[in-house]
């Protein structure tokens, strides 16, 4: 689980979860059995990049470039940790 989280981990959307854009809610949502989380824009920006191929470092670099920001690593790691706890994300080898 989370013990393995590092900057070289490759997070992916958890098994049984689905991420999609819902125009009726004007938001990305994360769907799971009999439930749904409506994502705020930052959560969506991170989760849409978790494709099991990119590393956490790749994702941070991409976010910093896309949003012309620096020092996002702490926030991104904290969110990824939270998402792993809730099984929204899982780590790929």
């Amino acid at each position, binding site marked *: 689980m989370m013990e393995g989280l590092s900057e070289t981990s490759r997070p992916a959307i958890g*098994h*049984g979860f*689905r991420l*999609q854009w*819902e*125009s*009726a*809610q004007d938001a990305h*949502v994360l*769907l*799971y*059995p*009999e*439930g*749904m989380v409506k994502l705020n824009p930052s959560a969506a920006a991170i989760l849409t990049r978790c494709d099991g191929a990119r590393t956490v470092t790749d994702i941070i670099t991409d976010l910093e470039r896309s949003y012309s920001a620096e020092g996002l690593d702490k926030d991104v790691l904290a969110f990824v940790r939270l998402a792993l706890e809730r099984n929204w994300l899982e780590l790929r080898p």
Partner: protein
Amino acid sequence: MSTVTREALPGRPGPPLWLLLELTYRCPLHCVFCYNPTDFSHVGAELDTAEWLRVLREARALGAVQLGLSGGEPLVRDDLAIIVAEAHRLGFYTNLTTSGIGLTEQRLAALRDAGLDHIQLSFQDSTRQMNDFLSSTRTFELKSKVAALIKKYRYPMVLNVVIHRLNIDHVEDILAMAERMGAEYVELANTQYYGWAWLNRAQLLPSREQLRRAEESTRRFRERLGSRMRIFFVVPDYFETRPKPCMKGLGRIFLAISPDGVALPCHAARMLPGLAFPSVREASIGSIWYDSPAFNRYRGEGWMKEPCRSCPERSADFGGCRCQAYLLTGAAANADPVCNLSPHRHLVTRIVAQAEAGENREQALIFRDHRAPPGAG
């Protein structure tokens, strides 16, 4: 002159995010706690495949995204995989509630290929069968086989067991069985008293002591199994002091379509008097959800009476359940009598006291059947 609060004049409601298709009332089982209407055999012809697909498309276009497929037993519809495939293509997250009867590997593979996201396996046996099952007869083997298939196809093993006075003392055995089956989630759902369960409530409502022991067993299993098997224990709301936020408010997020196409804001709402629930055979989902008087009747807070109308908790529990208010007090707009602020709370208290005393159990259990029971429905 009247002052109208903003809550009393709601704007356009949000979309029906959660769509439940009750594909059929047909079911191989005869459960005494079924919430289906007691006169289900008089309900009109089931929607055909094309009609269900149209319902899916229209609801999805409005923003529906979670889809429940239930019944009756949805597996008796041989077009289930077609319905799942279209739902998946449209972007629904698809949840199937089934007794597992009829779930062969071939069918499960077809549902999986169609994009089915989730399965909840219910133990919706009659009491007699439940006893058979607890003494490890063929029901156990059937369910175990289905449970193994569910795991083989990489679905989480989610078990739902309806709990009542006649099986609540077996909670320990039920949980041990769930553990042997490798269940990841177990929902011990105490019976809700609607439909057939309402007819049988004197026989089904447990005593406080039984509840306490069942919760104690549940606690021990939770302690031992932790996150390996998560157990949800749903207390019967008659024992609570505040009502459940039924459907998170009627007409707010939940839309159920009955087998014959009648649209409902709650699967039990068909019993509510004075409401003409429209059919998807005659109207679009959009006009039903947004414009029909039946769906607007219990939206917002304008319909509320005291003590709900001025209650600070009204926006959290929406006055509880309209069906329960109707069944117990005779008026759907009354506060749910489960609430200890309700002037009708004594009705619930009396039912609980009768359960403690073992009163009114002379009547034989009425098993769900296509023949409606006399005087019911």
